[in-house]
């Protein structure tokens, strides 16, 4: 009974699925999907090698400091970095007086402890990076109704991570003259609308953010590194890897130690297992009539006596 019911249930599901398949296929053949501008012009992110890559990766602190400078002088005009506190910057190699001085350069919203009136005061290491706009509405109002995302987690919140951020920052092209790998120019209908900017690394090609890193030397690096657009994009991408995953180095270190421990434990465990089982294997080894040579003997004895089998 179960099998009869099952047969019909199975037939039902499989039948409806095959029916769906045929409708789906005939629909597909009658209206083949057209190539979209995204499918023709969207590019996979470029390759970016950072010091933090790989199982032994460590942050390049000099680069993180440069990236912080790019964030402070360029990105922070529109993008918040809410999850990072000034005290966290100690990990970038700053000492306490430097941290205090850095925090002091930022105005933080607070209330007057006497009368509760809203005031702004100088930042302290305990404060988080203050957002550039007090709320989402203000952020949109100042950015043609687009909302600049918080950057704290951006390298983890986008497919492609830091290489994607780097590609996006260096990927702006002139839509009028741009040609894809096949040499095809961007059709007139796909030209970016007003206030949007063409960038083939962005999912739908048109980005509300104008090119933030417009020219070489936009930031004057404190460590004297030449600040090409490419360099600035790399540095800020590296910095944003740190903001998204500040404990990356601890993770790598702990990972190596844990794996060494586990591999040793596994190897010792394996030898213990072999030793324990050696006994069991001895026990199961046949002696007596089942042993192959004894079986052969008994066979030959039987055949001598003329017994079959």
């Amino acid at each position, binding site marked *: 009974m179960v099998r009869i019911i099952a047969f019909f249930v199975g037939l039902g599901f499989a039948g409806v699925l095959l029916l769906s*398949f045929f409708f789906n296929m005939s629909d597909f053949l009658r209206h083949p999907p057209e190539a979209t501008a995204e499918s023709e012009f969207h590019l996979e992110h470029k390759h970016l090698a950072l010091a933090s890559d790989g199982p032994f990766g460590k942050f390049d602190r000099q680069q993180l400091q440069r990236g912080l400078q790019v964030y402070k002088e360029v990105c922070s005009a529109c993008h918040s970095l809410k999850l990072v506190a000034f005290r966290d910057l100690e990990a970038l190699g700053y000492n306490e007086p430097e941290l205090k001085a850095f925090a002091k350069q930022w105005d933080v919203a607070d209330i007057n402890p006497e009368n509760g009136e809203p005031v702004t005061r100088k930042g302290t290491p305990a404060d988080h990076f203050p957002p550039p706009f007090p709320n989402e509405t203000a952020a949109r109002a100042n950015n043609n109704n687009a909302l600049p995302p918080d950057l704290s987690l951006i390298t983890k*919140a986008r497919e492609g991570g830091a290489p994607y951020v780097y590609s996006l920052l260096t990927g702006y092209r002139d839509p009028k003259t741009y040609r894809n790998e096949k040499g095809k120019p961007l059709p007139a209908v796909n030209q970016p609308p007003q206030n949007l900017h063409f960038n083939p690394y962005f999912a739908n090609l048109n980005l509300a953010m104008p090119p933030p890193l417009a020219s070489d030397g936009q930031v004057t690096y404190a460590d004297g590194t030449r600040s090409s657009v490419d360099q600035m994009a790399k540095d800020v991408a590296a910095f944003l890897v740190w903001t998204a995953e500040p404990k990356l180095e601890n993770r790598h270190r702990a990972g190596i130690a844990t794996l060494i421990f586990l591999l040793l434990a596994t190897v010792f465990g394996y030898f213990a297992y072999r030793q324990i089982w050696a006994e069991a294997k001895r026990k199961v080894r046949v002696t007596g009539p089942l042993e192959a040579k004894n079986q052969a003997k008994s066979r030959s004895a039987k055949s001598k006596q003329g017994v079959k089998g």
Partner: protein
Amino acid sequence: MSFHWAKPYEPKHPLARWLDERLPLPRLVYGAIGGGYPVPRNLNYFWNFGVLAGFFLMIQIVTGIVLAMNYFSSVDGAFNSVEHIMRDVNAGWLLRYAHSNGASFFFVAVYIHIFRGLYYGSYKAPRELVWMLGLVIYLLMMATAFMGYVLPWGQMSYWGAQVITGFFSAFPVVGEPMRVFLLGGYAPDQAALTRFFSLHYLLPFVIAGVTILHIWALHIPGSGNPTGVDVKDEKDTLPFHPFYTAKDGWFAGAFLAVYCLFLFFLPNSLGHADNYIPANPMATPAHIVPEWYFWPFYAILRAFTVDFILPAKLWGVLAMFSSILLLFFLTWLDKSPVRSGHYRPIFKRFFWLLVIDVVLLGWMGGSAATPGRIAISQLAAAYYFAHFLIILPLIAKFEKPLPLPNSITESVLHGEKQESAPAGSTPRASTTAA
């Protein structure tokens, strides 16, 4: 319970004797996973994954309890509290990554465990209840994992909750009120988040309880084995301790090393980038995808595109639930008296076809729905149902199984490499027995 040659527990230390007379807990453990549980001597490494699954349940419970000490189940605070754990809590990143990757590896272990059961006929008499209790655990795991994924309140959390609770609205009349009742509102919000957190904390202990029943039910007939032949005498078995504790021990180390590779070096590779964006009810992600362990079912859900008598969505939801529920009936669907797939030449081929089919479904379920991928999932889903509901009963009827070995010991004598070779074959290694 178990076999008459099982070694009885004999406490040596006076304190152990004293305890045994009052609360025989060590006796229980000794009989369950100690020297007092005789296990077939020919188990292969596929028999390691039950213990491993239990191990991961413990990892999940321990890391989860500590995470809950720092987590804040509010729609305004949940996302930031997870980041607080990642940044400010001592070793918080380790706890969180251990928990999120632990869920994935729990499913890896359980999936291998389930397919082991499918191949070696673990659902057949006398282990039907072991199998069914296992399925109950699996269903509880799915519910727990889904609710756990909602807790960080990222974009995928929110939209995943939206889509999955939306399944209920496919049912006519009662569906929509049921969805609203489950969510505590018309869309996932504070009420949903708090109850998901509460249930996510509760269900693992229910899983632990059902696991005890699962092991209890297993210990009545004893473990199965790759030949599927019943244990005949003491020679066929070894005590669980030290033999299988040693085997499980080193293998657990190796499996944990793979888990740690992900935990420490690819912690986000099994997740989705969108879940690092705080939940936003106003912005739908381009592709809503569940976690990888749900992909085959997601593919089945999306495969129904035709309103045939019932709406396509209802077909999809019914099929998705049925795809798991049908496993409860396996004992009656596959009536072949031979347990092990080793001795079932036709069954064996269809089994591997099923494995490929499920992997294919998973792949399709995990990628964006294009007409081509939907078409593949339609064929693959059709095979899934046909396999269990039509093909398995027919194989059982028409297949001529290979001859079985007379006993487990005889099969072991073929040599270690061919522990479960058919009795009729003349394995290479047979001479090594001499």
